[in-house]
């Protein structure tokens, strides 16, 4: 695979998901998805509602255990039984439903699961938690004046900002953002897009799910289109027009999509190579 950004270390993919399958009762949420992400690469993951985007990303974040399939992270085959396993490897995700605890304050949510401790790890270091939370929020330009109010009392956008801050703060290697800008005002969306550019320049891989297609073209290297639990297309963001992307999402050639999807599962690697070479 040819490196796109001229980085020599891109011999190893940051993550490769191979033939991931997941079924919920009668719904085949994922029907064999293969996806690869390079270091510092920004992937836009798009698709219709219920295409399986969130489910695929939850698999990658360890929140959902797939029925079958393989995940290779930094060259190592891994399997995540819990979100902790994924977090320990440096995979952070902003969930579509944010996954905040409404009764816990801003600082508490930011550090949930990795609280600073004192007294030999027995007690929470509450003072440090608030101090560090303020620093992290300021560094991300997030305007939440107080860190000791329960997040249940924040606005939707502020809650989203807290969720983003939590994912970014602990130096992830792979950042998954599931519709992170859905509730944000214009200026805040800009902040998030800038943030994506900044972290990817530092080598952090980013997967961005959004229905705001215009944003994708501003930050993404590749666009992956999902359709009914399969990866339908893997496009170079710079060589793809908005019209093309839209037609892939709504699946214009729907009539034979069942067959061609099955074929694509095998042909995807070849597809990747051509995409890479085209850049």
């Amino acid at each position, binding site marked *: 695979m040819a490196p796109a950004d001229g980085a020599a270390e891109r011999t190893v993919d940051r993550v490769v998901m191979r033939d991931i399958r997941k079924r919920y009762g009668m719904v085949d949420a994922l029907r064999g998805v293969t996806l690869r992400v390079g270091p510092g690469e920004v992937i836009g993951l798009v698709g219709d509602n219920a295409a399986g985007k969130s489910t695929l990303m939850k698999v990658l974040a360890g929140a959902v255990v797939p029925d079958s399939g393989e995940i290779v992270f930094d060259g190592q085959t891994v399997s995540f039984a819990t979100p902790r396993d994924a977090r320990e490897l440096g995979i952070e995700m902003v969930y579509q439903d944010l996954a905040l605890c409404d*009764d816990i304050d801003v600082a508490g949510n930011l550090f949930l699961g990795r609280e600073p401790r004192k007294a030999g790890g027995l007690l929470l270091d509450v003072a440090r938690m608030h101090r560090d939370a303020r620093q992290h929020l300021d560094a991300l330009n997030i305007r939440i004046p107080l860190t000791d109010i329960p997040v249940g009392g924040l606005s939707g956008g502020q809650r989203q900002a807290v969720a983003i801050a939590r994912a970014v703060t602990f130096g992830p290697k792979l950042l998954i953002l599931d519709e992170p800008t859905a509730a944000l005002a214009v200026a805040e969306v800009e902040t998030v897009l800038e943030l994506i550019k900044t972290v990817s320049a530092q080598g952090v891989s980013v997967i961005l799910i959004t229905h705001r297609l215009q944003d994708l073209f501003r930050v993404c290297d590749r666009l992956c289109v999902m359709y009914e639990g399969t990866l339908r297309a893997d496009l170079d963001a710079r060589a793809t027009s908005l019209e093309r992307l839209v037609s892939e999402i709504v699946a214009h050639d729907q009539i034979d999509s069942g067959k061609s999807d099955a074929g694509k599962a095998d042909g995807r690697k070849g597809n990747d190579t051509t995409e890479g070479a085209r850049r």
Partner: protein
Amino acid sequence: MTTSEPTTTAGKPPVVSERVVTTRAARANAHIGKHAQTIAIGVVLVLLLIFFAFSADRFATTGNLLNLLRQISPTLIVAIAMTFVISTSGIDLSVGSTVALTGSLLAIVLQHGWDPTLALVAILALGALIGFINGWFSSYQNIPPFIVTLAMLSIMRGTALRATEGYSTPIDGDLWIVQLGQGRVAGIPVPVILAVVVAAVGWITLTRTPFGRYVIGLGSNGESLRRTGVNTRKVGLAVYVLTGLAAALAGVLIATRLSSGSSNAGSGFELEVITAVVLGGTSLFGGRGSMLGTMLGALTLGVIANGLVLLHVSPFYVQIVQGAILLLAIFANSKVWARFGAVRK
């Protein structure tokens, strides 16, 4: 929350500062909401104390107050543990039966000549095991804790009845373990000292440790907590071990105070404990727990029971009053205090 918030005029610069003001108000609001019920129950307690002090002559004596505290100690100890369970949005109905079983078994093994220290350790371990079973079914198998602990209530009570054949078993007054229920240190009953220690440890654990955080988080939004990498099942199980352990300690205190283990002990105990917790402002829906509230709640129940007896009211009324208080407390919990903005359910 919008009451004191002046609507911003279109001008841009003041927005930031105005925001700070509104969020300060929100914070104050949240803090009042958090403590409103604790404050309210504190006020109720003071009013009750004044009322009984004037209406029942023997109420305000040191002897009676120490006796009152000793009476509520077992309730308070289990209520502290129950605060953790209810904060996770769980419930443990089996504590009363556990009190009966552990008290009975303690008396029986002592009668068989067990060393009191060994007996105490074994009884506490049994309590923890009962809690473990409760926790395993409800947290690891996702069976509603209401059903799990209701079943355990029946199993434990039945076991206690079977073990004692319905008779109460006397405990030899010369054994040191009797001091747990009857002894005094510097004039203060040992159960009261134990209850204060348990309450202090419980308070620190809930408010100042990661475990306490996770308990609140589990009740607030368990799936969110799980996604941050916390082992939520372990947390969900641990709280039942706490109530099991606390119930066993309560069983020991009650049996040693009466110098006998009875399979009828602790009937209605679970109701008393849950009432104390809910009265203190801990939310039955989880995510909100107050240790101070629980302490005040247990004290209030004790004062009512003790005061009514001193006023020569029939003890049967005490149960009626307690049930009515539970209903009122839950009503206040979900309807009145929710207005203070801290809860968003």
